[in-house]
């Protein structure tokens, strides 16, 4: 339980109003949505074919395939488990490679978009040591910060698969295009969250450094950043987990990641193989989740 929660308990519950209004609005939105979509609960009852498919598909959940299910396997095709490992490797390569440009661009836009960085420049400008640089920062700061926030909002308002579709149409299919497609919206998301984390980092250290006459850059690097860095690292690892899923889904567009094999096996009705690939993806995600949990535990406490 965090401090605000405890404060809320001491205060006692606030007026019921706001929370109730939010809940009621949510319900109203839900009713409007169901009407708009013409949702019919009978649609949740699959037809006979649907039930047969469900039984066939979920029936294999506990017995994933360990070798190819097809009858005519092309000569020279690698065994299923080798092919699954290979697809997993391609998925990890896509995700890890995409994180590099995402983090670099995300850090640039995040620093630029954080108000704390510009505030530290302004405070120094007010304190009298008005170098030309400080004055420039104090006036240009808000503008640059808005531009950075706008750019990162634009980047993340388009989904990575839509970036991929756009690049496919404009350049043709290349792994680099797919990589950039993942990197752009991820940079936008990282930038937003980094900026928030920097702005919410504890300020006393920064204030002390500023009083001691440190330059704005030093205040930022040694006063603000260390407080935000653990959270930023943990969040970056979480985005890596998301990148694994995005990379897997890119397979549906022809890249040789896990999604490619999931789609191919499902269309061939080799449900056991589908489960094999699904479980490989689950293992990847769980492994990264465990890793990020361990890192977070050691960093944050």
């Amino acid at each position, binding site marked *: 339980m965090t401090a605000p929660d405890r404060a809320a308990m001491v205060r006692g519950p606030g007026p019921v109003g*706001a929370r109730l209004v939010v809940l009621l609005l949510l319900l109203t939105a839900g009713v409007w949505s169901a009407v708009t979509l013409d949702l019919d609960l009978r649609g949740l009852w699959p037809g006979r074919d*649907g039930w047969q498919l469900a039984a066939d*598909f979920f029936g294999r959940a506990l017995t994933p395939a360990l070798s190819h299910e097809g009858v005519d396997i092309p000569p020279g095709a690698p065994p299923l488990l080798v092919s699954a490992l290979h697809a997993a490797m391609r998925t990890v390569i896509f995700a*890890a*490679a995409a994180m590099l440009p995402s983090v670099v661009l995300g850090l640039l836009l995040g620093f630029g978009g954080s108000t704390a960085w510009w505030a530290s420049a302004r405070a120094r400008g007010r304190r009298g040591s008005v170098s030309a640089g400080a004055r420039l920062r104090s006036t240009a700061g808000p503008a640059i910060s808005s531009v950075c926030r706008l750019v990162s909002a634009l980047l993340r308002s388009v989904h990575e698969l839509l970036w991929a579709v756009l690049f496919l149409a404009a*350049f043709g299919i290349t792994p*680099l295009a797919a990589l950039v497609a993942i990197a752009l919206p991820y940079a936008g998301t990282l930038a937003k969250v980094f900026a928030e984390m920097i702005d919410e980092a504890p300020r006393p250290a920064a204030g002390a450094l500023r009083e001691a006459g440190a330059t704005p850059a030093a205040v930022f690097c040694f006063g603000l950043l260390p407080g935000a860095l653990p959270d930023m690292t943990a969040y970056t690892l979480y985005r890596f987990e998301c990148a694994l899923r995005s990379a897997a889904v890119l397979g549906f567009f022809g890249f040789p990641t896990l999604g490619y094999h999931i789609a191919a096996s499902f269309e061939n009705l080799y449900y056991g193989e589908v489960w094999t690939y699904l479980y490989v993806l689950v293992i990847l995600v769980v492994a990264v989740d465990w890793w990020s949990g361990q*890192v977070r535990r050691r960093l944050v406490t």
Partner: protein
Amino acid sequence: MSARSATIDRLYGARPRSRFLRVSAWLAAGLVVASWLGGGFLRDPIWTARRAANLQRFLAEVAPYPLQGRPFDWSEASVWAGDIWRDHLGQATAATLAISVVAILLAGLLASLFAVWAARNVSRPDPFLAGPRAEPRVRRWPWTAVVVLARVVLTLLRSIPEYVWAFLLLALFGPTAWPLVLALALHNAGILGKLSADMIENLEGPTLAALRGAGASRGQIVLGGVVPLSLNRFLLYLFYRWETCVREATVLGMLGMVSLGFWIQDARARNHYDEMVLAMACGALLVVIGDLVSALAREVVRRA
């Protein structure tokens, strides 16, 4: 001076160090470098004559159809966009929004059902009381099984991406809105469920133990203690996930069902890049508006 540097040296020597973190950092760096070296991303030439021609054709066709080959004119472009909006994009945008809303509500419902059973302080013989070792093992293991089962289900739901869920469910339910709604709901239920279960485990014990001491049953503690204490945080998570639902609802339509993605795929198949980009712009606008609404709602909840 020397005394001060000795202090600093001592502080430096006593700084927290973790071999795990150091190995992790090297591992992460190695993974990224190896991926760039081994991934072959830079093997193909980035700029070829064919790509340049492709790009030029694309840029020519992105201009609204009535204006292609002519200077851009806002009034004509807006008439063109208005016609398409009235024809199908308006309806598709509304459907995209509706899918995201139904999906997140369903996800919230599923998540709260699972979270209670996945929380170790609720799922035990004597909820919220004493240390876990205080209870005899025979009474403990059924509850441990419940926790493990709930967490395994949540992990499976969460690890499989929405797009894959939608792909699988489409075959099951046919081309209605349900596969999209359920795909988003299942994946997000996994995420929300795990977050909520962890949140419940971190609730302050004494308050809930007091309810137990006053004779409240497990269900009564959940309804009277856990829900009021965690509702605000839960709503924050819900709105955060709703933002991603809006994004994904657009994309999932590309599998061939109602939502903006259907028209993006349709325009792409016909090489009508002007309409494709217009549909993408509708989606982007919806995402921006959704983010604003969500930020507003989260602010209201935070103050409540």
